[in-house]
């Protein structure tokens, strides 16, 4: 039942990807590699939704001046659904990672390390998001409880904290136009390390367009590390649920895995995980919207990411275990997930999800 995926050389059938960063930054990052499902039905639905959102944001070089990652340093990887800006990222960074935000000169504490944030439900407010006829049935606008100063969007957060940013909107956050601006939402990567080789994966379409985003960073020991932020659908339509055996999330996770394999093999035929060596260490994390930790979509991820930290039994969204961090060393035996380091962050910082954190380091 694996949904066949393909590289989309021309990008998705929606506004062309472009960067808000400098030309130099764009050149350093290279262009984004897009992947999407081969199925015509998936493609049409994704294209229809894609036309309602604004362009990709890619600012691959962090403005914050920090010491380079030393050989013995570990790297923190965070996965967090921030509820359309409801999660207070600045406070999270200060309290959990010891990083005080500043556009260029943050003051990391003694115990702070470099980090990569894999964000779901990031949002952007902008006038460049297209106005679309009301006949399009938009997802309703999600409005989190307001902090006094309002909700900074993902671009503003990246700027305030001097972080590299890769944001790919997947759908609108409501049809409203507010003071001439509209909102879209999607997955993002924020990092204290430069982002290279950005990829975007349009997942097989179920109830709404979902785009996983990935990039490569210099991991511990200067190893290449691919990081991917994922958000799967909650549920499909009732008819699809009945006629496809509730395989919405399994189908999307298989689509993601196949696209990652395509990215690793430069488009060569993909074989099942375990039969091929993966050339690059990878972390794929996010909100899988799973109702049980034993869901097939998660089991499929575990098969392909055999060095993943075990689940600690703690739910992250109400009673549901929705958020996970998966890891595989790939061909690089030097990097590893530091045993026992993965945990749920107990405070939600204004989001409706708990974040998860794991640390990666060099093997002894």
């Amino acid at each position, binding site marked *: *039942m694996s949904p066949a995926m393909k590289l989309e050389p021309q990008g998705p059938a929606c506004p062309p990807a472009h960067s808000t960063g400098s030309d130099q930054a764009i050149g350093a990052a290279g262009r984004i590699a897009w992947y999407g499902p081969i199925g015509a039905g998936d493609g049409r639905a994704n294209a229809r939704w894609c036309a309602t959102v604004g362009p990709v944001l890619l600012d691959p070089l962090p403005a914050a001046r920090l010491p380079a990652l030393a050989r013995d340093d570990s790297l923190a990887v965070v996965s967090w659904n921030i509820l359309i800006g409801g999660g207070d990222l600045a406070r999270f960074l200060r309290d959990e990672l010891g990083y005080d935000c500043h556009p260029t000169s943050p003051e990391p504490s003694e115990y702070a390390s470099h980090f990569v944030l894999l964000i779901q439900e990031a949002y952007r407010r902008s006038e460049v998001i297209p106005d679309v006829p009301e006949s399009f*049935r*938009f*997802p*309703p606008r999600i409005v989190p409880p307001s902090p006094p100063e309002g909700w900074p969007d993902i671009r503003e957060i990246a700027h305030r904290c001097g972080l590299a940013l890769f944001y790919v909107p997947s759908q609108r956050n409501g049809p409203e136009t507010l003071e001439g601006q509209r909102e879209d939402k999607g997955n993002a990567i924020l990092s204290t390390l430069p982002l290279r080789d950005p990829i975007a994966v349009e997942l097989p379409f179920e*109830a*709404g367009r979902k785009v996983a985003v990935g990039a490569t960073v210099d991991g511990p020991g200067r190893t290449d590390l691919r990081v991917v932020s994922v958000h799967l659908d909650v549920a*499909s*339509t*009732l*008819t699809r*649920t*009945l*006629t*496809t*055996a*509730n*395989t919405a999330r*399994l189908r999307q996770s298989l689509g993601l895995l196949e696209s990652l394999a395509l990215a690793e093999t430069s488009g060569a035929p993909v074989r099942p995980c375990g039969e091929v060596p993966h050339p690059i260490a990878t972390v794929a994390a996010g909100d899988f919207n799973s*109702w*049980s930790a*034993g*869901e*097939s979509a998660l*089991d*499929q991820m575990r098969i392909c990411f055999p060095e993943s930290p075990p689940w600690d*039994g703690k*739910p992250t969204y109400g*009673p*549901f275990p929705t958020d996970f961090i998966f890891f595989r060393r790939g061909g690089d035996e030097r990097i590893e997930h530091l045993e026992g380091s993965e945990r749920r962050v107990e405070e939600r910082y204004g989001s409706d999800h708990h974040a998860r954190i794991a640390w990666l380091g060099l093997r002894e």
Partner: protein
Amino acid sequence: MMHARPAVRGSIVLLSLLLFGLPSQADDAQAQEPSGSTGAAIGGAALGLASGGMLGVMGSLLPCTETLEQLTCVRASAISGGLIGLGSGTLVGAWDSSRLASAAKGAAIGFGAGAAVGFVLKEVVRQYGWLDVVSAGAIGLSIGAQPEGAALGLGAGLFVGSVLWLAVPSWELPDLAVTGLLGLAVGGVAAWVVEAAEANSSGGSGVTIPFSLRL
């Protein structure tokens, strides 16, 4: 994988059969003796297949989500439920068409109730369309054909799930939905078997059924 158009056509055919075909046969049957006919057997087969198959899907959706062979698992359950329903429905129709008329009436009411719920969902849930209204009707049909068995099964499933939730630390609250739906499906399909056995009994075969699901 089922496609949209066949699903709609199938639902329309089945609904037409339920609304216009079976009741008239049942009226004929009730006017005479509690006996069946070839036509009623065919109608029973169709109703049993639809009801049992849908119950098989519903009962397996969540448990099968925890297997890597998710699609195969649900298909196997749907085929099993459908075959049991097909066989039982055929026998019910062949032996006692008045029982089949009762099941068909319940199925029609169930379809209407399910479609009404589906319509409300369509207005509330963004991605839902008319096809989902039909699907909700089909779920209602499958339950409505054997409401007592489905209700008993649901109750038993929720009870077992509650006990497990209290007793087993790793048992999660969402697992209650699993046992509930599983119970509903097993109860509904089992009720078809009991219905067939009772139809045989009432048809004068001499077989005495030691219990009844009629409340």
